[in-house]
């Protein structure tokens, strides 16, 4: 609230406030013969709209990660959830101000960041949740370890360089490093072509 004192006449009223669009309107203060001495005016300011550009990336490699980002504001009632595509960022048209962004992505630690949105691009780094899987490949009849080659495929496995696509387990045992909470396809082929075992293919879901 502000009180101004001015002689009668025509004015241009301007109001500015952080995070709001500038307000400009004509104002006429009537002469003493036309009205009483007090004039009240309510100004409605529009919040300044801007574009929030977000990229969610793997903290180790900087590779974009498909994620779900929930944007909330503590200043105004606002909440929106958007998907960030793997090929790049996503954008959201919002008013300027302070926001909290909650990011979740399968295989990664959830993250909260607080940012002051001013129209820049924000890159959010998220950390991998890794699961180490020790595999042993045994003959179903004898229980003996069988030398095999293991082919792993699944979301981001190759992109993030978690391991070789094909792993030779000459001793019949192998250790895989995988993201948690992801379903991988594991193909197991006996490495010796004269072997007696059948190739095996299965899905492995790592626990959260």
């Amino acid at each position, binding site marked *: 609230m502000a009180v101004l004192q001015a002689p009668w006449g025509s004015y241009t009223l301007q109001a500015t406030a952080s995070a709001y669009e500038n307000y400009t309107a004509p104002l006429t203060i009537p002469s003493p013969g036309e009205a009483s001495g007090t004039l009240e005016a309510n100004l409605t300011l529009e919040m300044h709209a801007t574009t929030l550009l977000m990229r969610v990336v793997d903290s180790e490699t900087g590779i974009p990660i498909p994620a779900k980002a929930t944007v909330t504001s503590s200043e105004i009632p606002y909440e929106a959830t958007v998907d960030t595509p793997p090929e790049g960022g996503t954008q959201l048209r919002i008013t300027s101000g302070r926001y909290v962004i909650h990011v979740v992505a399968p295989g990664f630690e959830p993250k909260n960041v607080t940012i002051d949105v001013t129209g820049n691009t924000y890159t959010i780094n998220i950390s991998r949740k890794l699961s180490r899987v*020790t595999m042993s490949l045994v003959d179903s009849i004898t229980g003996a370890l069988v030398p095999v080659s293991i082919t792993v495929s699944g979301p981001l496995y190759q992109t993030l360089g978690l391991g070789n696509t094909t792993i030779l387990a000459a001793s019949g045992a192998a250790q895989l490093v995988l993201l948690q909470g992801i379903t991988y396809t594991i193909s197991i082929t006996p490495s010796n072509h004269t072997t007696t*075992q059948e190739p095996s293919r299965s899905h492995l879901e790592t626990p959260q």
Partner: protein
Amino acid sequence: MSLQVALSRIPVEATFIVVDGNGEMVKDAYVVLKLSQYYTTSAEPSKPAYVLAGRYSVQVVCKGSIILYPAPVDVRESGVYRIVINPSML
């Protein structure tokens, strides 16, 4: 996290023919195939049998006698396998 994957063996169709030292077929001789203490199977004389591929120890049963074949037999693929025994052991 540890994971153990059990690999299945390939089934093959194998016919076992028991012959003596002269190459004559020994009639009524059938073979008992032992892969491990958990898997033993047998094959009737000259008839195809479905067995799991592997290296077997072989016993020949004929005329009330059991002969332990001295060498292991590798059954890797479908086909005919000749088991040569010494007739004096019968």
